[in-house]
């Protein structure tokens, strides 16, 4: 007895469907990049703010708690100026506020100069040190603690790596710069830079 006509049709369709299904399961490359195919692995990205509790350890600022001491290159002294005690050890201390005439005339103070002068940051007794408002002495390579007295949020951001430049590895050791490496402490305002050339405008005739 002859098989009904639609049996051949059914068998052929199932074969094609089976072939296509096997091809899909086996992961044979399909020519079209369908949506969603691009991501090789779904990542579970937590919503921002989900880890508010886990803060950078260096941003803890409880008074008295020792903070990490970031690694910094040496302070950017002018050649030969340091140690200051090579001149100042023998000089008498003059705490009167005045414009300097004998030496350091190249320094123009433009940093809250109405209210402060040299000895508000530089230690009067030992010029190789700076001092905080409390009188505590800090070395020049910890000058950020001095800057941080007024610029507290900048100091916090700097410790987290968000303010200023850092070199190194994003997943490893980083080298910071001192505030003074970018900001002249006597005249901190940045000078404008010359920009690098603009991109060429596209032309109609030639790419």
């Amino acid at each position, binding site marked *: 007895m002859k098989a009904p*006509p639609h049996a*051949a*049709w059914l068998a*052929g*369709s199932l*074969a*094609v469907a089976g*072939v*296509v299904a096997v*091809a899909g399961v086996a992961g*044979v*490359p*399909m*020519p*079209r*990049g369908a*949506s969603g*195919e*691009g*991501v*090789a*692995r779904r*990542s579970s*990205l937590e919503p*921002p*703010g989900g*880890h*508010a509790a*886990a*803060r*950078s*350890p260096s*941003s803890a600022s409880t008074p008295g708690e020792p903070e990490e001491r970031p690694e910094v290159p040496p302070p950017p002294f002018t050649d030969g100026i340091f140690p200051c005690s090579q001149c100042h050890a023998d000089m008498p201390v003059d705490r009167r506020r005045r414009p300097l005439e004998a030496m350091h005339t190249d320094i123009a103070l433009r940093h809250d100069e109405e209210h402060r002068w040299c000895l508000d940051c530089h230690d009067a007794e030992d010029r190789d040190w700076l001092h905080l408002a409390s009188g505590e002495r800090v070395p020049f390579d910890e000058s950020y603690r001095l800057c941080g007295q007024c610029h507290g949020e900048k100091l916090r*951001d700097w410790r*987290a*790596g*968000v*303010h*200023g*430049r*850092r*070199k*190194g*590895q*994003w*997943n*490893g050791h980083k080298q910071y710069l001192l505030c003074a490496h*970018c900001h002249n402490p006597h005249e901190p305002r*940045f000078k*404008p*830079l*010359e*920009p*690098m*050339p*603009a*991109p*060429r*405008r596209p032309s109609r005739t030639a*790419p």
Partner: protein
Amino acid sequence: MDADAAAVQGPRGVTRRRFTSCAAAAAAGWILTACGPKRLREMPPNRLKQAIAELERRYAEQFGTGVRVSDAGPLPGVEFAYALDLSRCIGCRRCVYACVEENNQSRDPQVHWIRVLSMEKEKGIRFPESDPYYEPETVPEEGRFYVPVSCQQCRNAPCTKTCPTGATWVEPDGIVVIDYDWCIGCRCCMAACPYGARHFNWREPSLPRDALNPETHYLGNRPRPRGVVEKCTFCIQRVRAGRYPACVEVCPVGARKFGNLLDPKSEIRYIIEHKRVLVLKQDLNTLPRFFYFYGT
């Protein structure tokens, strides 16, 4: 019933036999494409190494010096993100040219992966009124701020969806990459990208020998042929080795930040948690990995 009537025909005169045999042949042909050339990301590791060795040989011949092509894969537990401080950027374009040097971009025709847009402070971020061709004596200019734009490495990227050949895709660490050997240069991705971040090599790229950066990655900064699309890859050759992208290191004001989103102690997480963060063209739902923030 005669023999002709027994062969029932479809609407266009196609018999069922003919239809099923053609469909089966098409399906077989489809499967056999698996035996042909493969996209780089589908190659088994040894075949990929062969392909890369061939690339290195070809580049050494072309440039007369050794070129290393890395095949470094994504690091586990890492998803990259970038943050740019709009209150700091002065529009000096040092990032643009550092990128050109690091990533072996063509000098003529000129290809820049980063484009710095100058906008008015009074009006805020407005793309139609922005000016990428500013050239004042000094920057920053009074009353203007600067928004550098490069590939945003979108989590919901329109470009990877439109690519007809699957030559561009998102890697597990979040970088959107291009297989330069599979790209056919149709530029659908360029049309799809809302940020204008993809660039095409209309002519043979010119890269002087002394300007070549020999440390390359097969999906990143290896010298590209004519007729393919290229774009920022977060300096894939650097970041998969733990270094910062070139633009981050060169920025003179420290406006650029980079890190691992999955690391709660990274500066990127700090920025997202503590600063005012925004993304460009948010309404398009591209979910970029490139955040802009105000540091002050």
